């Protein structure tokens, strides 16, 4: 079992992700450089957060054309597990592995805070959580406002593919607890086949109680159980 963490120029969450998976959970993890042409036999791919290519042009847009993405797209299409965190989510949308777009936050400002999420545990990314569990995970983004046309949103909802929703501490998924204007308070979604997850919050930043929360570890624990 090996996790590959993809590093683009401008990525900054790769070492936090590596720390959470490799050091805290003991899952062998290694970096994959964006200029590489091989995934080096990794079983799970994580696209971490940051500002790949400075997020110039449009968040995630340039990264989606980098050499490694071709490999990741075919890996995902053959059923490989892929997680995109924050900028990684944006890249997955730009690469069409996930539907929708992440627009500028409705506040027009970057936002960094602890967010509460309501978990849909019916996915291979979340099966270690309890049904509708409320977890605390930091967000840190300027463009996390998930939008898609009605047909796609209906499909996501009907197919139970909304994996995380912004909520209150008590699980209310109302506008008051929506940090960026995301439709239906969507914080994370999966693809139709269920092997690709994109989420704006940073589970790797919630990896130890000492730094405020270890609620993010459930995602990594879920996928390794699934993969084994």
């Amino acid at each position: 079992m090996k996790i590959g963490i993809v590093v683009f120029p401008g990525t900054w969450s790769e070492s936090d992700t590596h720390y959470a998976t490799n050091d805290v959970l003991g899952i062998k993890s290694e970096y994959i450089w964006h200029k590489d042409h091989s995934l080096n036999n990794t079983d799970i791919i994580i696209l971490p957060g940051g500002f790949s290519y400075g997020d110039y042009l449009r968040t995630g847009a340039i990264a989606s054309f980098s050499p490694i993405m071709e490999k990741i797209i075919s890996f995902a299409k053959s059923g490989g597990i892929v997680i995109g965190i924050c900028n990684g989510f944006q890249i997955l949308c730009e690469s069409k592995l996930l539907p929708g777009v992440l627009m500028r936050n409705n506040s027009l400002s970057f936002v960094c805070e602890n967010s509460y999420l309501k978990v849909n545990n019916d996915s291979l990314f979340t099966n270690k959580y309890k049904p509708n569990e409320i977890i605390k995970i930091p967000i840190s983004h300027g463009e996390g406002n998930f939008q898609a046309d009605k047909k796609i949103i209906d499909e996501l909802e009907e197919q139970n593919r909304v994996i995380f929703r912004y909520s209150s501490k008590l699980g209310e998924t109302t506008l008051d607890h929506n940090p960026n204007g995301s439709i239906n308070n969507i914080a994370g979604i999966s693809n139709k086949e269920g092997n690709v997850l994109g989420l704006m919050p940073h589970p790797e930043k919630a990896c130890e109680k000492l730094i405020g929360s270890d609620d993010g570890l459930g995602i990594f624990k879920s996928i390794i159980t699934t993969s084994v």
Partner: protein
Amino acid sequence: MINEETLKELAISKSEYELIIEKLGRKPNDLELGLFGALWSEHCGYKHTKKLLRSIKSTSINTITEAGAENAGAINIGSNKAIVMKIESHNHPSAIEPYEGAATGVGGIVRDIFAMGARPIALLNSLRFSNLKSSRNIQIAKGVVEGISGYGNCLGIPNIGGECFFDESYESNPLVNAMCVGIVDNDKILSARAERPGDLLIIIGAETGRDGIHGASGLASQNFEETIELRSAVQVGNPFLEKLLIEACLEISNLNELVGMQDCGAAGITSAAIEMAEKSNLGLEIDVSKVPVRESSMTPYEIMLSESQERMLIAVKENQYKNIFDILDKWDLKCSIIGKFIDGNDVIIFNNNNLISKTSIEALTSPPEYDLSKISKSYKHHKSNLILKNKYNSFNIETISSHLKNIFSSNNIVSKKSIYKKYDHHVQTNTILEPGSDSAIIRIKNTDKFLLFSCDGNSRYSLLDPKIGAEINIAESCRNISVLGGEPIALTDGLNFGDPTKPKGAFQLIETFKGFNNACDIFNIPIISGNASLFNEGHNSSINPTPIIGAMGIMNNKTKILNKNFLKPGDKIGVIGNFWGTDQGLSGSEFQSFFENETTGDISIDLEFEKQLQFCIRNLVRLGLIKSSHDLSLGGLIVALVLSTEKNHLGVELEKSVPNNWAGALFGEDQSRVIFSYDEKNYNEISNVLNDIQWEQIGTVTEKNINFENIIFESEDLFIRYNKGFSNDL
């Protein structure tokens, strides 16, 4: 004869020009005059502050660098790790172009840190704006915050704390001080120097453009009215490129071929390269035609003085640049060999094969040193008296309640969350205590250490009495760390002052250094790095003298983390120092400024008592005897009580009656006071620790409201006001 306009543009005085001729034994050419203008500016040459800086305590048993010798100061924290830190201002650029000014301020201080081979692990900042009543002021404040957010977030460095203060003295001149902290193995600290003749000088990163020419000599050395025309002197930042530079330079720093590294900041290649040569006791040859430029037809003058951002200089062993170039190529970074270090004491500048200047490095790097004490002699500092209105000395429930309510609409008191939520403070997964506390706490992975940081200043005190103000500045920055259990071990200072060539400005600087020296001696703590921003003047008025102290503390990772918040009803509350504030404590207070729109009176601090207090509170935290702890300062006792109960929506019952002189008692900001809460069962042990110091148990945590024996303050409304934040959304 030289044109006066030219000298003015370079901020060189006539007598300085004559001194240049004397040193060279000839007239300087245009390029050389530009070099002198840059290197003799306050920003690079410290001609008004060098004498004072020499007097500062800058070392301790743990310091590794000599003050001012490197890009930043370094201090050993054990486990073969050193912390590198520095504060830097970007005031003038931020006044002209708030977003880019603040953004490039962050970029500059971060480069100073990784130039030492250290990975940046934290940012803090100290901001000063005028009130938010005019659209211009709002635009400046917003732009600065957005600039720090836009640049800093892109770098993956957590912005863990700082302060933001509003006062009309910053109407023309906002202050933007950014502090950066880095970590490096003790044996891997880089120096900004070459080793031997033949070492290559290589520039890395951005191409050199026409931006920022005369930034150091112009912007940082003239007052605001003169600089409004200098918009093109503000650089534009590219944080993505900076992030690549961080990673590439840190990767390069492990190679033996690398000899030294230097940030290319104020005064561009001129300052960076010539200072490197000076530190190395070597001469230097530069060929400006080798510098990658953004526009064709740039003159040697422009290339040498450009302050284009995101550039670094490195010194590399002769012929051994291949591995370095490979790493730069991996990160898609441009580089070019632009010169080499040579024997001798001259900087020799070529444009291709044409020799365009040969100048003594010694002459360039020894600007005149001005003796401020001669300038300040004619200044008489007038102490102003504090005169209190009668209503502040007669107990009246309505008056007191309405003052409390109103002060919770002061931008200085309310929550700063709308600022710090724009900054990533979680990245790197080390942040244990987030912004909004007395100090920020981070852990250092793979060690047994927590580090604490605060960044603080009180310019009203410095206005009333710059010496005592400086003492309080250091005391309070350290107190912010001690209340959470940390032992303060190093400081960095940001000196933001008016014109030092005027008696008042000179006086304020001299007195501030006296205060720093006193406090550093008594607390036995060094100032390991710093920055001076002078000439902060405009509209015939100067800013309040604003020294800023960034402080670092250390504690064992077994220490229980606490903060200012009371935890549960039934816990007891204690105060070390005087419980009630005094009338004198209203001098320079938020209460005085907010309600009377004045800053007058006398201030004081007993540094020996302060030292003992900090020792005691650290012990209480370390022994795990208390549940919360908070420096009782801005807004006085009553504001501290509200802030301690706000987070968990609690109240307090105090076994005291508010006296007639209620304003001083409740709102006085007398120094050296700490408020803490604890479980009653620890009373005896706490008493033992606090055996020799003045303290008392003052009451109990309850479910709601602040109850004194003769007056009740309903706190729910105050919480709402506090959390509503600034009067205008930033």
